[in-house]
């Protein structure tokens, strides 16, 4: 893991558990990753792989109880932000780290105007007056491509379409010029044409403002089009990390390989069924003592059941948590 001066976020051995009636759920297990200035990091994984929980753990957005961040360090701005008080965390949220959530239909408060909700972080973090905040809010709506920005400030969320609401959410997340934007499946709830528009918007904003972005998704197609680097999560841990080109060209973890197989092809014969990965994702009731993918893996052998593989550097931009890759690079070409 490189941590040069251009690294703005570094996560080490993050471990989050949920306390439930049925015992502990180990949602995030020893996750390490870093984010460079201006980089777009894609986080891929199926539902329940711990993508969102990892990101919400970073800035204390998980309700506690039931959530508990058990271990780890999150270095941001030269300090470990996991140890911060609620008050200090609050000044980070919305100012340094912006969040966009999955469902724009429910993520905005229905009884306040869009302008009010957009001006809230501006007045809270930047200490702007009402008039200044209104002017900046209009600029932000303009930036995210909402026509008649000034008039629309006094509209309520239900007067916007789904795509427009997600633009509003993005404007809120960008309000205070954050250093990091975390987008948690921002296009999942939208239809495909709107999805493309939002992706285009993010690309444009990134070029314009240059912040680092963490993009959580289960859609590999989206990742291929937008990300610089990808981490693949499974069972609450990172199983593979690579640049986007390398991940698609040379996936090394059996899970990543299987995941890439599931993408339907537009070319070739149409008469075969869609690929899926047999089996179910693990229920994380115990701290992992085996490879979490072992039950579904076609290459599993004895060692996988007794030991959880650590991440193994293949080169400086590619690592994978699999014994096949760590023992002998050639054996993973299946």
């Amino acid at each position, binding site marked *: 893991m490189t941590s040069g001066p251009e690294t703005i976020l570094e996560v080490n051995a993050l471990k989050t558990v949920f306390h439930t009636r049925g015992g502990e759920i180990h949602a995030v297990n020893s996750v390490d990753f870093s984010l460079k200035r201006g980089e777009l990091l894609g986080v891929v994984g199926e539902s329940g792989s711990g993508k969102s929980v990892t990101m919400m753990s970073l*800035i204390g*957005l998980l309700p506690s109880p039931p959530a508990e961040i058990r271990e780890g360090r999150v270095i941001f701005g030269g300090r470990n932000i996991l140890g911060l008080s*609620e008050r200090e965390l*609050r*000044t*980070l*949220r*919305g*100012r340094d780290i*912006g*969040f966009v*959530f999955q*469902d724009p239909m*429910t*993520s*905005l*408060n*229905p*009884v*306040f105007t869009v302008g009010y*909700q957009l001006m*809230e*972080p501006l007045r*809270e*973090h930047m200490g702007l007056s009402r008039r200044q905040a209104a002017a900046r809010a209009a600029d932000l709506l303009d930036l995210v491509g909402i026509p008649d920005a000034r008039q629309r400030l006094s509209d*309520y969320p*239900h007067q916007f379409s789904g795509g427009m609401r997600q633009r509003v*959410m993005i404007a*809120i*997340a960008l*309000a205070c010029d954050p250093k990091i934007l975390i987008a948690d499946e921002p296009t999942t709830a939208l239809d495909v044409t709107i999805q493309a528009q939002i992706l285009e918007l993010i690309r444009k904003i990134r070029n314009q403002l240059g912040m680092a972005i963490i993009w959580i998704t289960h859609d590999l197609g989206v990742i291929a089009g937008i990300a610089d680097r990808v981490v693949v999560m499974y069972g609450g841990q990172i199983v593979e990390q690579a640049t986007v080109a390398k991940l698609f060209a040379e996936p090394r973890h059996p899970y990543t390989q299987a995941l890439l197989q599931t993408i339907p092809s537009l070319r070739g014969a149409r008469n075969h069924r869609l690929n899926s990965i047999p089996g179910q994702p693990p229920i994380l009731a115990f701290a992992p003592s085996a490879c979490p993918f072992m039950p579904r893996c076609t290459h599993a052998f004895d060692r996988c059941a007794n030991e959880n593989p650590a991440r193994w550097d293949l080169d400086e931009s590619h690592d994978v948590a699999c014994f096949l890759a760590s023992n002998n690079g050639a054996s993973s070409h299946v």
Partner: protein
Amino acid sequence: MLNYTIRRLLFTIPVLLFISFIVFLLLDLAPNDPTGNLPLTIPPDVRERIRQSLGLGEPIHVRYFLWCVQFFVNEPLNILEQWTGLQFGSGDRLRVQSWATRSPVVDLIVERMPQTLWVVGMSYVVGIIIAIPIGVISAYRQYSWFDQAGTFVSMVGFSVPTFFTGVLMIVVFSVHLDWFPSIYDTTHRVTDWQSFWFQVRQMIMPVSVLALFNAAQISRFMRASMLDNLSQDYVRTARAKGVREPVVLLVHVLRNSLIPVVTVIALGIPQVFGGAIITEQVFKVNGLGQLLIIGIQGADIPLVQTLTFIFAVLIVFFNLIADLLYGILDPRIRYE
């Protein structure tokens, strides 16, 4: 909104006429005799003449029509005359008269109204003031000791009848401790600090018995509504923006949670006017509830008919208010 309000108001006219007719029919079908409370020495033929003089010899549609004229035309004209000092016609109009007391029903109601509004209305206000913070805290700290205690108290407040809590309070605070009077003195007039203090003391027990009951209901509503909203996505958005926790709770969540609760509170107001029949009996508050009970016991049909109809008007009216409040509080609802 204005259009909608006017349309709804116009629509209430046939509804209320229908209600008044149904009430009239039901009272007529009820087995009662307005002369039943008179001494047994009165011979049957005299009783029959008393009934005739009360108008019971007329067929039902005539009696209903006469009540309608008295209530919808004569009474409003009287009030109008009193307010404006003008004279309409001879001023000699038949009013709705109580059979038992021979005094106009409207005057009786006006006489009883203040006691009921003070005691029952105050208990409603106190109940709301207690219930909303309890509901908010119980939801925010769900399953905490505060929430458990709140759940227990509201279960008790809701399920133990007021004639029990009322008598219990009289036994403890009037009989044993002698802090408060056990009988509400309606004739008491507040003229100075001392008489004001007496008024407060005699109100404490009936108000707290009823407030406990109201608070139990409303706090559960408040709690459920808060819980509904606390788990909404927009709460997470507000936190992710770095909004202070009190603002998240008391601006974002409370504003949304109050929408259904305000409606419930508005719908409960007619019950305040209806008086708390049982509690008024326990503490001898001679309010509207007690008036209604006496009217029913004495088969005082004009009194019961008029009171019941006024309650119906209030219920219909506050239903409309609740609907309009919904439209004001929730920007997603627009009435066309």
